[in-house]
């Protein structure tokens, strides 16, 4: 297993949000994490990226124990994050984002390849991120994560604010990434994208993984889905 999460718990201040998450992902695997608002998806992803210290449990990356590592160390070990809410650097231009994020000379995802994926971003390369439209910022956040040449990408709602046609591009990109051997953990509300990009689906309920199955199976099992996600049919 490339990424192994054992009994992970974490939270903010006194309050605990994750209550023992168990999850593993093989190298090159892609998993979508679903769940209602506020169940702790973002908290899990932040903890895996090192932004929140875990209060219990262990995280192994390619067999190495990386529990409690600082985010920059995890990044160097190959973990990249596309955070919820974009979190681009408003006072930096698009190009500067790439200049800072690029590791190993941008072998796999050079800036130009990202611009092919998101042509709008290419046209805005000299603009400050603070001036970009919402969707453009989202593209930039994805591009920044790719530029670090990661082995695992954690994506927190990458489709938020993107036009449907761009969401399709993102789906293409995700598939390409997985084919290139990347490991992907995706949090997504848009089921099209969610089911398109991943082979497996996990559903989170109140800080735990409640259900996990292959994508195809999930598509067939609408009642379970509705129960877990609270979608009114």
């Amino acid at each position, binding site marked *: 297993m490339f990424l192994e999460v054992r009994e992970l718990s974490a939270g903010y201040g006194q309050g605990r949000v994750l209550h023992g998450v168990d999850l593993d992902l093989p190298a090159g695997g892609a998993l979508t994490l679903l769940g209602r*608002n506020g169940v702790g998806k973002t908290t899990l992803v932040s903890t895996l990226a090192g932004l929140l210290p875990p209060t219990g449990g262990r995280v192994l990356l390619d067999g190495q124990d990386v529990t409690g590592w600082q985010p920059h160390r995890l990044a160097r070990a190959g973990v990249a994050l596309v955070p919820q809410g974009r979190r681009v650097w408003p006072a930096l231009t698009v190009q500067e984002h790439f200049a800072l994020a690029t590791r190993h000379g941008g072998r796999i995802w050079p800036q130009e390849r990202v611009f092919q994926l998101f042509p709008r971003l290419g046209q805005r390369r000299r603009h400050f991120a603070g001036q970009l439209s*919402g969707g*453009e910022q989202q593209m930039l956040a994805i591009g920044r994560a790719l530029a670090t040449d990661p082995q695992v990408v954690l994506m927190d709602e990458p489709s*938020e604010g993107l036009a449907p046609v761009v969401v*399709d591009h993102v789906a293409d990109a995700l598939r390409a990434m997985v084919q290139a051997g990347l490991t992907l953990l995706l949090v997504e509300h848009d*089921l099209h994208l969610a089911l398109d990009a991943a082979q497996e689906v996990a559903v989170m309920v109140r800080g735990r993984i409640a259900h996990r199955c292959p994508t195809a199976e999930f598509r067939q099992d609408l009642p379970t889905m509705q129960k877990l996600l609270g*979608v009114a049919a």
Partner: protein
Amino acid sequence: MTALLHCRDVQHRFGALEVLRGVQLAVTVGERHALIGPNGAGKSTLLKLIAGEERPSGGSIHYRGQDITRYPAYRRARIGIGRGFQHSTLLESLSAGQNVALALTGGRLLARQGDCRRLAEVDVALGSVGLRDMAPVPVAAMSYSQRRRLEIAVALAARPQLLLLDEPAAGMSGEERGTLVELLRAVPPTVTVVFVEHDLDVVFDVATRVSVLHLGAVLLTGTGQEVRRSREVQEAYLGGRREEVPGVPRGA
């Protein structure tokens, strides 16, 4: 019927970047008018121009037949143009009730806040979004979804005749989207709504008319059906594969 809001040949540029190149948009009273379009098409910019946060570099904006192009933002608010925000700009150090009360007094500095009638109105406004008991709670202590609902309560409490919303469904899970759609449908028919949204389910569930913004101009205005059928819109915005996944509701 005459238009409540009329944008005539509105243009806007940021430095050398021409974002809007002559937008024509007419919105009649009671409409639920959705603005859709590719990222960076200028939807948010157009909303800002209507709300008065930015001044257009060309063209004019008319509201109830009045030319409001040069009005500052607060004056537009006073004549009935209300605005909800995508990223929460709720007043963190005040309570939910005070946030609503500030909207109720609509820009008057010396309004009497303690007044019983006003308190009742605050209760009604909060109740309409299911936050009746939250009046004394400071915004900083509220959860994300509570804030989103308060956001809408505040926008409505200002009793706008024209309500502008930018991506109200962003970041919401399926369940919450459902609630949002109901909330928007429950807005009284005297209130006209113009909203930007990428979630097409929300768009087609709520909107009575849809305008597609593309390359800085309105490509097409029509009903949801008409827009869905348009080939140009398909290419520029919707993408091809959307309809190919049957049986799966969008937005879980």
